[in-house]
């Protein structure tokens, strides 16, 4: 069993008074698809560039495959990067771009040409080798950038928001292609993204970052279902937040939640033995709008529909529960025969206490 391929120990990075990274400890295993997720300015790109060798850590250590990278420049690190702008060399052809890094290798020329052709084939650019780089579409450029990095067989491939410039359809397609390509080549991928959906779809593990620190490091499922705090909860998907009061008595724990009433809850739902004032979180899909004539199920409360947003397969309702001052979001699948309810409609809302998460 080998150690982690990337290990960061207490990495700080500051520019004058500004602290971009404030103590990052992180280990990433071989063959992992890892995402750094966070809003802009959270330090995720700085962290990626520190791993790549474009930035030096002000403090702390960066180890790649067990080797300390202090003083090792970017060109001598076992990492390659796919840049946000792709950085495809405009004066070179597609094949020359992909073969750019091979010039330094000892590989004989015909073998190099074969390697380039095979790589182009792998990223779906077969036969386009002679095309001028400036004549490529955004998606093709991205594939060139990917091929150019992967052909050098790096230990770690770094991707700096590689999909953010693509239109939605192409982005979704590339997400799946990237994922399967990563499984094929078995190289560790570290993806920087501000798109939570992208991170959830693609990653084995995600580090959610805020203000230069990792707020939560976990699998996509844990990040979504068990966010450690309100910031993570609100950043990943939609989270309804309600004021709550947690009380412990002899037999167990109960929570009084605005608009929902008092319910018994389990210890696993409350991090760190929290008591007293707290915030309760509920995902939109754990709430259900009950139509007229549908029987009550689980726990039921009442409210008014204030907003309705139609998404095709789903409708998102903003429902203000009785006794609350702002609406909660409820997502409903649009099934045949199910009407879209208009704002102003009075409705029952079914929910279940198991779906609750509490934050300080």
């Amino acid at each position: 069993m080998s150690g982690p391929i990337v290990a960061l120990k207490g990495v700080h990075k500051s520019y004058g008074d500004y602290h971009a990274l404030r103590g990052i400890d992180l280990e990433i295993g071989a063959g992992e698809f890892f995402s750094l997720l966070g809003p802009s300015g959270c330090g995720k790109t700085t962290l990626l560039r520190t791993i790549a060798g474009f930035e030096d850590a002000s403090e702390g250590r960066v180890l790649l495959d067990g080797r300390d990278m202090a003083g090792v420049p970017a060109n001598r690190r076992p990492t390659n990067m796919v840049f946000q702008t792709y950085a495809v060399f405009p004066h070179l052809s597609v094949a020359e771009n992909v073969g750019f890094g091979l010039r330094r290798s000892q590989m004989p020329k015909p073998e190099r040409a074969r390697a380039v052709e095979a790589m182009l084939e792998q990223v779906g650019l077969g036969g386009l080798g002679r095309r001028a780089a400036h004549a490529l579409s955004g998606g093709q450029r991205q594939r060139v950038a990917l091929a150019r990095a992967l052909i050098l067989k790096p230990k770690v491939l770094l991707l700096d928001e590689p999909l953010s410039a693509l239109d939605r359809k192409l982005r979704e397609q590339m997400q799946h292609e990237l994922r399967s390509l990563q499984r094929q080549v078995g190289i560790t991928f570290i993806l920087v993204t501000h798109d939570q959906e992208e991170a959830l779809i693609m990653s084995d593990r995600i580090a959610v970052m805020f203000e230069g620190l990792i707020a939560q490091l976990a699998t996509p499922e844990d990040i979504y279902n068990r966010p450690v705090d309100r910031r993570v909860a609100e950043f990943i998907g939609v989270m309804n937040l309600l004021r709550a009061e947690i009380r412990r008595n002899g037999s167990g724990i109960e929570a009084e939640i605005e608009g929902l009433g008092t319910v018994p809850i389990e210890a696993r739902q409350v991090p760190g033995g929290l008591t007293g004032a707290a915030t309760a979180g509920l995902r939109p899909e754990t709430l259900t709008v009950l139509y007229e004539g549908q029987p009550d199920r689980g726990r039921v409360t009442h409210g008014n529909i204030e907003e309705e947003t139609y998404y095709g397969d789903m409708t998102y309702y903003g429902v203000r529960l009785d006794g609350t001052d702002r609406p909660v979001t409820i997502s409903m699948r649009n099934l045949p025969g199910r009407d879209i309810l208009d704002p102003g409609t009075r409705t029952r809302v079914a929910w279940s206490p198991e779906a609750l998460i509490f934050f300080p």
Partner: protein
Amino acid sequence: MGPPALYALLMLAVPLATIFAYTFWTQDGLTIDRTLTFSNYREAFNDPLYRQLMLRSVWIAGAVTLATVMTAFPIAYFVSFHVPQRRKALWIFLITIPFWTSYLIRVFLWKVILGYNGVLNTTLLGLGIIDEPLSFILYNANAVVITLAHAFAPFAILPIFVALEKIDRSLLEASRDLGETHLTTFLRVTLPLAMPGIVAAALIVFIPTIGDYVTPRLVGGPDGLMIANMIQTQYLRLNDAPMGATLAVLAMAIVAVISALVFLASRLTARIWA
């Protein structure tokens, strides 16, 4: 016909056509003999003096171009890559300050600097670096090259600066990321991408310098005279406008051919480089 076309016709085509027509006429005392003849061209090609002046003009203009581009590139590179973004405009502005004075005054100042008792010689003598004044720096081709290289510096710095500014900095990082050092990144990425600016700078310097006559007249001495001085002499002293026109057309043809060759060569090397 729209005004721009009319303007181009009056200001470019008509004067050029007039010059071109003159080359087939001959001077007959005080009048122009309008019989068509190639005798001017025959004379221009056969007289060794004209050939020597033409070759010297090409050689001096080439040397000026080389010197100007070689000195302009590091300046443009420094301003583009090492000056903070918000100060770049100021730097470019400062570079142009010496060029607010008249061209003529700057040429005279070079005489003051390069002369026998000039600034350069007295300084070097005073420092004990030389025992007697240097004489190879004024009234010869060297002086013409130095003066013109200085005069055209901003015209070379600007296009190179613009070409360097247009280079996406992430390309340089990408090259580093793919294993290249600072030096090889410069050779494989920066230089080829700056090439259009370098070629533009070279042409902007070469084309006007080959026809310059003020600088060679003032600092060139007898060995520094160029073809334009001869054209001036033909028109104004020898009162032979047809011969002057012929030399001008030949100089123009040479500039056109050399520019075309430089342009094609740059295209070709860009391909081979890759």
